[in-house]
C-alpha cells in the first residue's frame, strides 16, 4: 500500500502503561506508537519487559494503569479472540503451533478468524460455508507460498523443521487478516542464512501491506529491517528513533548494544 503519500496514522498507541506483578514493576509508564505501514522494532536486554509489553498489547495481561489503543479502540476488558478480530495477530517466542494438525489446517484456523460460518452452515453445507471455505483455502495457500512452505502443506506441523515452524507461525498469524502483525523473537535459534531469509520475509510481509511489530534480540536483524526502534530497559523506555539514531544513542549503547554484541561474538 502507498504509505508514503499521507502522514501516517498511528495504528497502535501504548499510552503510559504500567504493569505490576506484586512488588515487581514489569513496565513503568511506557508510551510509544506504531504507525501504519511501518516496521517497528522493540528491543532491550533480557528481562527488559519486551514480552510483557507484547502481552499487554495482545490482551494476555491487563495493564495496571494506562491503556493501549488499537485502531481507535481501547483494549481493556476485551476478550483475546476479539482483539484478534480487531486486526492484531502475533507469533510466539516459544513456538506454539497446533502440532497434530496439518500445516494447511494451522493456517486455515487463522483464516477462520473472521468467518461467520456457524455449526448449521457446516452441517448443511450452505453456500456461505462453501464460499467461506474456498476463500479460506485460497488465502491459506497464498500465505504458504509467501512464507515459502507450500510443498509441505500436508505435513503435520510437528514434523516441520524448526525454521519452517517459525514460518508457519507467521503464515498462521497473517491468515487472521491483521492490520498489525506482532512477531515475538522470530529469529530465535536461527543461523545467519536463515536470519537473512527471515529479513527478506519480513520486508515482503510489510510490502504486502501489513504493519509489523518486531521484538528481537538480534541487533543486525533489527537494524537491517526496521523503520523505527523503541528500546526498553528495566521496564522503562530509554530511547526511540531510527536505527541510525539508536545505533549512536549513548544510553542504548551503555544499556544494551555494547554488552550484547560482545556476547554474541
Amino acid at each position, binding site marked *: 500500500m502507498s504509505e508514503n503519500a499521507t502522514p501516517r496514522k498511528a495504528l497502535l498507541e501504548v499510552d503510559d502503561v504500567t504493569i505490576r506483578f506484586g512488588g515487581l514493576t514489569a513496565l513503568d509508564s511506557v508510551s510509544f506508537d506504531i504507525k501504519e505501514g511501518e516496521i517497528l522494532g522493540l528491543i532491550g536486554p533480557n528481562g527488559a519487559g519486551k514480552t510483557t509489553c507484547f502481552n499487554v498489547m*495482545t490482551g494476555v495481561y491487563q495493564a495496571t494503569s494506562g491503556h493501549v489503543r488499537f485502531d481507535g479502540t481501547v483494549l481493556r476488558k476485551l476478550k483475546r479472540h476479539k482483539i*484478534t478480530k480487531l486486526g492484531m*495477530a502475533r507469533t510466539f517466542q516459544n513456538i506454539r503451533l*497446533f502440532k497434530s*494438525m496439518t500445516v494447511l489446517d494451522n493456517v486455515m*484456523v*487463522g483464516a477462520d*478468524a473472521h468467518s461467520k460460518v456457524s455449526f448449521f452452515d457446516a452441517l448443511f453445507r450452505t453456500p456461505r460455508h462453501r464460499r467461506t471455505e474456498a476463500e479460506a483455502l485460497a488465502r491459506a495457500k497464498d500465505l504458504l507460498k509467501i512464507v515459502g512452505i507450500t510443498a509441505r502443506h500436508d505435513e*503435520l506441523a*510437528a514434523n516441520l523443521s524448526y525454521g519452517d515452524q517459525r514460518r508457519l507461525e507467521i503464515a498462521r498469524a497473517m491468515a487472521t487478516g491483521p492490520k498489525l502483525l506482532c512477531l515475538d523473537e522470530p529469529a530465535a535459534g536461527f543461523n545467519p542464512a536463515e536470519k537473512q531469509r527471515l529479513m527478506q520475509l519480513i520486508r515482503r510481509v510489510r510490502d504486502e501491506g501489513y504493519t509489523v511489530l518486531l521484538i528481537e534480540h538480534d541487533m543486525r536483524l533489527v537494524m537491517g529491517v526496521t523503520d523505527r526502534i523503541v528500546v526498553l530497559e528495566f521496564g522503562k523506555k530509554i530511547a526511540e528513533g531510527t536505527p541510525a539514531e539508536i545505533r549512536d544513542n549513548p544510553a542504548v549503547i551503555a544499556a544494551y548494544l555494547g554488552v550484547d554484541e560482545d556476547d554474541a561474538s
Partner: protein
Amino acid sequence: MMAGMGSISARWDRVVDRYNAQPKIVKILWVTLLLVIAYAMPLLRPPIITTNSIDFGTVMFRVIAFALVALGLNIVIGYAGLLDLGYVGFYAVGAYTTAVLTVEHGSWPFFLALPLAIVVTMISGVILGAPTLRVRGDYLAIVTLGFGEIIRISVNNIEWVGAAAGIKNIPHPTGIGAKPEPPFKQGGLFEIPRLEWNGLVPSFDTEHKSAFLAFGSRDAVPYYWLILTVLILVLIGDRLVKASRVGRAWEATREDEDAAELMGVPTFKYKLMAFALGASIGGLSGSFYASSQAGYINPQSFPLLLSMLFVAAVIVGGSGNRWGAIAGGALVAYLPERFRDFADYRLLVFGLALTVLAVWRPEGLLPPRQTRRAKAAEAEIDALEEGDLEETPNV
C-alpha cells in the same frame, strides 16, 4: 521390534487410500455392499461372530447403541479434548425424558418425544458445561463424574420419575404396516427370515422372522435397523461438521487453547458446543435405549461403570477418529456378550482384553491418521538414529 504394532492402522490406511482412489461408481457399490452387510448382520448370524447364549439381535442393538454413544463422546474427548467422565448422566437424561413423556406423565408418541429428549439433554449439557468449561482440564473431569452420579442418585430418590422401581411399559416407536401380534406375527411391511447355521451350512429359519418397520417386544432386529440408521446419519453429520471451521476450531482448542484464542477462536464457545453436542448424542442414544425392546429403565441401568466403559470405548478405538470410536464402542459392547460362555469370568476376560489392547496399542485401535503419521515420522527418525549408532562400528 513389534511387527504387528502398526499393521491394523497401516492396513486400514491402505484400505482408505485404495477406496479413495476408486472411481465414483465403484465407491457407491462398495458403500452399498457394506450397508447391506451391516443391515443384514443380525439376520446373517455368521458363525463364530454370533453369540450363542444370548440373542444375537439384542447384542447387535447394544453394539450399535454403544457405537453411537462412543461417536458422541468422541466429539467431546477426541475432537475438543475435554475429559467427560459422567457421560452416562446424559444417556440417563435422554432415557428418562423419553420415559416421562411417553408413559410416566404423558402419552407422547416416541418420535415426538425423541427431539425433546435431545433438546433437554443438550440444555443439561449447557447448564453443566457453562460454569465448568471456563476452568481447565481436571475440574471438568471431576464435575462430570459427579454429574453422572447425581443423576443416578436423584432418579433413584425422586418418586416423580419412578424412584428405584424405574419406569416400565415405555411405548415402542410407532411402526409402519401391520401391528405385531404375539406370539407369531411380527407385522410391519413385510417379514424377513433369518439364517440358521448348521456347522458351515446355512438354511432359512422361517420360524424366527423379523418385521420390517414394526417394533414389538419379541425381536430386537427392527430396533437394530432403526438405531443403525440413526448411527449412519450422525456419522454423516459428524463428518460434515468436523471437516469445517467448527472441527478445526475444536482441534486447535485441544492442541493449544491460548494459541487458539489468540488466533481468533472463541474457545469457550467451541468447547461448550462440543460438550452440548456430545451430550445431545448421548441423550439421543438414551432415548432409543428407553424405548427399545424391553421398554423398561431404572436407576441401575445407568451405573458409573457405564461412563467408564464409554470413555474406554473412545480411548480403545482411537480418540479423535470417528471409525475408531465406532469400533471401540462396538468392541466394548460386544466382547462381554461374546464371553458370556465364561460365565463369572467374562468380565475378567473382558478386562484382560482391554489391558492387552492398551499395552499393544496405546493410541487406540484406529487412531486419527494424523497421529499415525506423526508416529511414523518419529519411528523413522528413531530408526535412523539407532541405525547410525549401530552401523558405525561395523563400517
